[in-house]
C-alpha cells in the first residue's frame, strides 16, 4: 500500500538522447510527486515536482508526466548530458497510514543513470 515502485534500476543513454524513468504507486492518498537527483557522496536534491492536478510539468530539459488513473508517473530527461549522470529517485508525498497525521515522502528504489559522451 505504501510502496513506490521505480524502474529501471539502471539506464545508459547516449549524449543527446532521452532518458525515461518510471514510477508507480498504490496509495491513492499520495498528493505530491517529486523527483530527487543524487550525485555520489551527496544527499538527494529536489529536481522537479508535480501535484495530481496536472498531467505534465516541464522545467527546462526535465518533464514529469503523471497518469492519475493508472497511478503512474515518469521523468523524461531530454537532450541528456554527461552531467546528468546520477541516481534519480521518485517519491510520493502524503500521509502514511502508520504515521497518523504526519506528511511524509516515500521514496522509490532509485535509477542509476549514465549518460555516455
Amino acid at each position, binding site marked *: 500500500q505504501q510502496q513506490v515502485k521505480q524502474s529501471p534500476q539502471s539506464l545508459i543513454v547516449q549524449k543527446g538522447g532521452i532518458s525515461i524513468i518510471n514510477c508507480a504507486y498504490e496509495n491513492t492518498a499520495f498528493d505530491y510527486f517529486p523527483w530527487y537527483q543524487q550525485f555520489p557522496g*551527496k544527499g538527494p536534491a529536489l529536481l522537479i515536482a508535480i501535484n495530481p492536478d496536472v498531467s505534465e510539468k516541464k522545467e527546462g530539459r526535465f518533464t514529469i508526466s503523471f497518469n492519475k488513473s493508472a497511478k503512474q508517473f515518469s521523468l523524461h530527461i531530454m537532450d541528456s548530458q554527461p552531467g546528468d549522470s546520477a541516481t534519480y529517485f521518485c517519491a510520493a508525498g502524503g500521509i502514511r497510514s502508520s504515521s497518523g497525521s504526519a506528511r511524509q515522502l516515500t521514496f522509490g528504489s532509485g535509477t542509476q543513470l549514465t549518460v555516455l559522451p
Partner: protein
Amino acid sequence: EAGVAQSPRYKIIEKRQSVAFWCNPISGHATLYWYQQILGQGPKLLIQFQNNGVVDDSQLPKDRFSAERLKGVDSTLKIQPAKLEDSAVYLCASSLRQGARNTIYFGEGSWLTVV
C-alpha cells in the same frame, strides 16, 4: 543560505559498539527528518520531528536506535548496539514546515560501516 550540516561524514565501528550522528538543519526549518539509505536503495524514513516533538517514529528500531531534537534545532541519532545491517548512509533532512508539498532539503549524509 547554509544547508543541512551533518557530522561525522564517515564512521567505522565494530558490531555491538555505539555511534552517534549529529545534524544541524537549515535555520528556521521546523521539521527535521532522519533517513536511512542502504546502498542501492531509496531513503527510508526513520523519524520525523516537528520542532522538538516526535511526529512519527514508527519505522525506528527502538530497541537500538534513539533520536532527540533538543530546543527544536539540532538533532542527534544514536545507535546502540550496532548490527552489521545498520551499515548505511544516515541522511538528515529538514523542511520549512510539515505541510503539503514542502521541499525537503537533505544533508550530505553520515556514512556508517559496521564490521
